[in-house]
């Protein structure tokens, strides 16, 4: 039950007879009238327990796009329902009108639309629906909270897809290109075509030229059906924010771009999110629906505040792909975490696979490095330099162990990782 502002106002008006007619009697009469009004309201209000609530909600929405959550309110009572309805979405769901006044005639259904504009990736929830059914006098109301829980899966925005057309074009250019420097086991024979000036003379097919009486060159196409395994580190280091975005989200953007690109390059893409155990996994079986499967798997990922256990990663990768693959590790290059976790297992990985380690570099460190006006600034610059030097050292160590390292600023990481993939593919190293 709840009382309304109107009741309080009427109660305040009761001060008037109390002043005009001294004595307890007017107060008692007025209080009795108010109590009667409240009782009438409570008795005549449509029972909120007999109102059916049905939710109609899109299962997923992409971050940055709005959607509408609909509540269908069925009034099964014999009275008109005048109610205030609240759909308590968590604040980051960005519900603009989560509280509405509705009026539903007896036996009718009302559509209450709550417009949502999520501000965070992940699974957003609304645990219940609260109905406050007002009486005809508007003095008191009956209130019930219904356990109608809903959840909305907010998918990563995939903002890096604007890089996709240019990268796809570069990937297509690999097709049908004359082998200039990339002769070797990694490329496959594609077709023969006429020689044009500038082609490598080594790719001239003399036998075919003899048959055609014209100079013919062999063309090659990049290998296909290779495996790409993307491993996203969701451990504590992924919680750190760089340029106001967690490492995890930057990693998701990079993984999405790479996955879509690799799929169009004809490769099989597997995705793992891992810290100490598997958090998400998408198999290469999801052929046509890969992107959809990926964003759905990535949506609920949150940084776990535990240390990553890299020693289990080789086994995880083996379970996904027993053959030689391109293993892309999206993790951080913080000294300490890498030296204890990744370095010991890396030789085993690089022996079997081609390993690319992608990490987000913090532009703030370079800002700190360049300001040296005061002693405090100089200390800060020194600390930033130390961090950068440590990073360099870790990168050098990783490269020495045979891994490719992509260390870029948040906005640059997805396209650079894609470039690395294209370069490796062009070089036939997959």
């Amino acid at each position, binding site marked *: 039950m709840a009382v309304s502002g109107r009741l309080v106002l009427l109660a305040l008006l009761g001060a008037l007879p109390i002043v005009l007619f001294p004595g307890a009697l007017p107060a008692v009469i007025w209080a009795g009238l108010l109590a009667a009004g409240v009782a009438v309201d409570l008795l005549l209000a449509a029972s909120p327990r*007999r109102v059916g609530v049905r939710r109609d909600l899109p299962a997923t929405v992409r971050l940055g796009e709005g959607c509408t959550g609909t509540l269908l309110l069925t009034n099964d009572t014999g009275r008109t329902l005048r109610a205030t309805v609240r759909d308590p979405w968590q604040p*980051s769901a960005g519900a603009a009108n989560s509280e509405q006044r509705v009026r539903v005639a007896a036996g009718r259904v009302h559509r209450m639309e709550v417009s949502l504009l999520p501000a965070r990736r992940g699974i957003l929830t609304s645990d219940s629906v609260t109905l406050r059914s007002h009486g005809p006098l508007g003095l008191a109301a009956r209130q019930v909270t219904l356990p109608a829980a809903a959840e909305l899966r907010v998918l990563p925005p995939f903002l890096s897809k604007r890089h996709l057309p240019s990268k796809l074009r570069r990937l297509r250019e690999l097709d049908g290109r004359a082998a200039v420097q990339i002769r070797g086991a990694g490329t496959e024979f594609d077709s023969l075509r006429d020689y044009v000036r500038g082609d490598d003379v080594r790719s001239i097919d003399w036998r075919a030229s003899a048959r055609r009486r014209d100079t013919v060159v062999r063309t090659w196409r990049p290998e296909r059906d290779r495996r790409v395994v993307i491993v996203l580190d969701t451990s504590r280091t992924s919680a750190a924010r760089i340029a106001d975005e*967690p490492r995890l989200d930057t990693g998701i953007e990079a993984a999405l771009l790479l996955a879509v690109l690799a799929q169009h390059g004809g490769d099989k893409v597997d995705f793992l999110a891992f810290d100490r155990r598997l958090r998400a996994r998408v198999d290469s079986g999801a052929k046509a629906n890969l992107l959809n499967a990926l964003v759905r798997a990535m949506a609920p990922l949150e940084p776990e505040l535990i240390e990553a256990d890299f020693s289990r990663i080789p086994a995880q990768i083996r379970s996904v792909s027993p053959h030689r693959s391109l293993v892309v590790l999206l993790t951080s290059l913080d000294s300490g975490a890498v030296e204890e976790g990744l370095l010991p297992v890396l030789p085993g990985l690089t022996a079997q696979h081609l390993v690319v380690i992608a990490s987000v570099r913090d532009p703030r460190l370079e800002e700190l490095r360049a300001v040296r006006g005061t002693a*405090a600034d100089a200390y800060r610059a020194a600390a930033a330099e130390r961090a950068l*030097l440590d990073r360099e050292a870790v990168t050098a160590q990783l490269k020495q162990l045979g891994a490719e390292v992509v260390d870029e600023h948040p906005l640059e990481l997805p396209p650079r990782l894609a470039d690395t993939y294209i370069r490796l593919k062009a070089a036939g190293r997959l």
Partner: protein
Amino acid sequence: MSRHAAPRRASTPPPSALPADLPAALTAAGPAPADTSAARAAAAQAITGDGGSVAATGRRRLRRALPGLLLAFVIAAVVVLGLLTRTDADTTPLSPGNGTPTGARAVAQVLEDEGVEVVHARTLADAEAARARLGGATLFFSDPNGWLNEEQLSSLNRSFPSRVLAAPSEPQLLVLAPEILPAGPAEDARGTVRAGCTREEARAAGEITGGGQLYSAPVECFNSPAADGGTGASYAAVGGTVVLGNPGILTNGTIEEAGNASLALSTLGAAESLIWYQPTTADLAGATGPPANPLQLLPDWVNTLMLWLLGCALLAMLWRGRRLGPLAVEPLPVLVSAAETAEGRARLYQGSRAVRHAAANLRAATLSRAAARLRLPPSSARAAVVQAVAQKTGRRPEDVHSLLDGPPPSTEKDLARWAQQLLDLEKEINNS
């Protein structure tokens, strides 16, 4: 407040539309048709009611409110008990009706047992009426607060020839016994003082408890040193006036010590009746009758109105305090800036004034970047880098050497300047 305010973040602009040449499968990143219909089917179950009823809700509320109600009941019971058992006990010090250690009921009762009529007067009018009724009564006068003014004291002086004054102040003495002069407080409040005089009552008592005020008078007994160096008497008399410097000897707590009781009874029980007069605020000059109660000036309806407004306030609390459903819970993400470790390290450097350490870091970084820029292998010696830098920038090799390989700065001030020089050199390498 009633609801959880949703913090609005600046909404990100919607991602730009996909380029036209993109395959159709890419656009499927949004809701897939199959998923949506499945979710809709699951959500199609209408939920009616919360499985409870009005009675169940009432019972639940009652159960939840029970501890609070019990507590309120206990508090109310304690308050009511306190009000019921409260007594109007007399707690005025030296009052003949006060049975506590500071009262003087013991003396008064013994005097009454001995046949002395003790009348407790609270106003001057009471005292004078009692005198008129009883005739030659002794007056016991104790007014430590000085409620009586000079005129009232003179009236007292005229009415009572025989009186016992309990630690009178100087203005009171001026009117009632000008021959007796105050001699300040006694030096030592402990122990006893001997009579040391020929006055009968004092000799009979022998010793009394020391302390209180001292006086000098024609007849002095129980002399003791005063706090300001002189001496004075605890018992002073002139004519029919007796001054007791330490009225504490009359109290229930100390009446049994030394000869206190003897002195008290012989002094106070000299006449057949005793008027025990302790002035109160009612004696204040100009006070005629009880003071006007300001509440009586208000109109009749004020009490009712106040109660009514209290009720209105309670209703308003109910109105604003009833939340529309439970609070929405937001699991907050971890907010750690990645550069925080570097900032922390910088503060550690600064806290321990690690100038050399900071300088070594800055120099190593500059050297490694310069080597990379000048196409030197990372393993090349410092001298080689210095040489190459000097060639590239056209600076004197000695200057470059002192900056890159010389002694590092030792003070914080030098560090800032030196760090800036390193940065300038680096810019020069990059630009030349």
